[in-house]
């Protein structure tokens, strides 16, 4: 056990000295709501910002966040050209609720599904809601959780970093 500890801590020390954070969208297969496969590398906005919001039909804070963003999303887009992809992590138990829910909510952004959570896992995401903002394929912002009002902070960040507003 002691030996394991020593190996582990040496390993951690070694990597923490050597490394910088990586920040690219990984290469994973996602699906559209119709079930067609799509590569994650083809999902981001090449010339601007993309928000990836990880959610599920059973996650109330996630839905509250997406509802809040949806309220002003047209304005966000007009000002910054930002795109939003809501990545559903619903598995076989709840994925049937995704399409009726999205339709009922009239969300104005793209929805993709990550049923076995390959994309979520590749991005090292442990819980939802989790929000990522990318510029091209580079990740420039990440946030865990959602509390009412936080959508304003997200928009401020998007506004500050979008080329259109410069």
């Amino acid at each position, binding site marked *: *056990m002691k030996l*394991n*500890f020593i190996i*582990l801590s040496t*390993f*951690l020390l070694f*990597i*923490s000295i*050597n*490394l*910088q*954070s*990586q920040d*690219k969208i*990984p*290469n994973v297969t996602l699906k559209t*709501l*119709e*079930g*067609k*496969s799509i590569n994650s590398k083809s999902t981001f906005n090449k010339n601007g910002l993309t928000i990836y919001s990880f959610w599920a*039909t*059973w*996650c*109330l*804070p996630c839905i509250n966040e997406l509802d809040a963003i949806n309220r002003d999303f047209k304005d966000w887009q007009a000002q910054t050209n930002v795109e939003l992809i809501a990545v559903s992590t619903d*598995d*076989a*138990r*709840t994925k*049937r*609720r995704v*399409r*009726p*829910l999205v*339709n*009922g*909510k*009239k969300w104005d952004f793209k929805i993709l599904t990550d*049923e*076995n*959570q390959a994309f979520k*896992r*590749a991005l*090292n995401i*442990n*819980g*939802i*809601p989790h929000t990522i903002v990318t510029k091209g394929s580079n990740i420039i*912002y*990440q*946030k*865990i*959780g*959602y*509390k*009412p*009002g*936080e959508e*304003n902070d997200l928009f401020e960040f998007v506004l500050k970093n979008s080329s259109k507003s410069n």
Partner: protein
Amino acid sequence: MFFLLNSFNIKSQILKNITSSFQSNSAYYLDDSRTGDFIFDKRFRSNNYLNLKTYTDNNWNFELQIESYLPKALLNYSSNFEEVGISTFNVQYNKKKLNIQLGNFYEQFGSGMILRTWEDKNLGINNSIRGLNIKYRINDQINLTTLFGDQKKGFKYSKGYIIGFDSEFDVSELLKKESTFLLGLSYVGRNDQKTKSIFYKKMSTLFSLRIDYSATYFYSNFEAVNKSTDPVIMFGSVSDTFMKKGSALLFNSGFFKNGLGFDFTFRRLENMSLFSEKESSGNPYNESIVNYLPGLTKQHDYSLTNLYVYAAQPSVSFQSPNITKAGEIGIQTDLYYSIEKETFFGGKHGTNLAINWSLWNNLDGDFDFNNQKYETNLFGFGDKYFTELSFEIRKKWSEKFHNTFLYVNQFYSKKFIVDSTGKVDSNILVLENIFKINNKSLRLEIQHLTTQDDTKNWSAIGLEYNLSSAVSLYISDLYNYQNPDIDEKIHYYNLGGSYSKGINRFTINYGRQRGGLVCTGGICRYVPESTGFSFTVNTSLF
């Protein structure tokens, strides 16, 4: 020399592209004058997960996950999680249409009814397969996957192997319409070297066919599974004489338009549980589980709606002459309706309605307990396991105030679901209110469960205060106030808080946990029953 330099370059390039995440869940368990002393060793327990991975634009990438359970794993985790170990290690090679993974991998065929490997730290599930996984995308229409390996079980691996093949064909173009039509065929072979007998084969095989149709406002899908003859496992032992084939049928269809959505699901499972080692069948940690058969009911967010939760009943189980099960059959329907803003019922900000109804029964058939035999009818509904009707209204009154009202009527057969006696007929009411004041918000949750059965009525109350986008505090209580046994009239109280900034998040909780799905400050997770302090950390090391 050049080679060395070159390899050094590649190395440093890979190192630059490593990403990490670290999660730590710890608890300090206390004695409790009401629920009893902590009777296990090690009051302080901690589960830690460090994940490192690369995703360069190169063809090669790797993933490593180290876990430690020191001094011991949290309560309700398998004893196969011990000390420190490597739980995931894989090397991936990507080139255009080809993806190869060597090591631990996560995969799902179709809806997972014949194969799903996944990780859920909070539930203690990590059933990855260690071996080789090759995916080949022939063109936009055809995807092929093949895999082979042994299955993870704590830090150990199952004896035997799993082999699988999946194909998916997109034949939408044949329809020449704005619709999608997908066909899938899969195969899974499970070779169990642990429990052997001359009476049955080591290898069990499963075939699955699926069809997926999707148009602008309508979708429909179907999946059928055939499982080869498998011995029945009861009370942890594998029968040499009681052997049956297995099967699964799943049909789902729905439509949605203009704020109205409807969904219907039918599923029938017979002798469908599948574990890489037969003996593991029905283990409480879901270890060695090969396929994914979730209970198809509404997934609730509130504590009292999660007291009597239905779990799918895929197995053959002859507990007594009165409890003979061969699987489950049932339906679930959902209706969603969004009432437009600026209408009479919609009000200024709109209203959302959701109605869910589910019904799950034993298979109908002739069960012969003494001779351990049964025959089932294909579409017959047998003894009732569970029914639930729920009605939910979400209403936004103003920018500052919105609430959710939920009514649930539930029937839960303790006899059939947990092999006990009796049933629970209950009515549950939930009222959740959210008040928003600038960047602060307050959430008040009031719940009541009414029943004449089991331990009678419960009430619950919860208050959460979000001081800022970073800090959140909460206090809650769950009380079985009508429990006929005075010693069991227990308050399950909890208080705590969370701090989050970017991808860092810390939480602390003190209280008495009943167990179930708990959501606070925006994150949901399952917690086991206990009393004490708990702490969680989510962060990235670099």
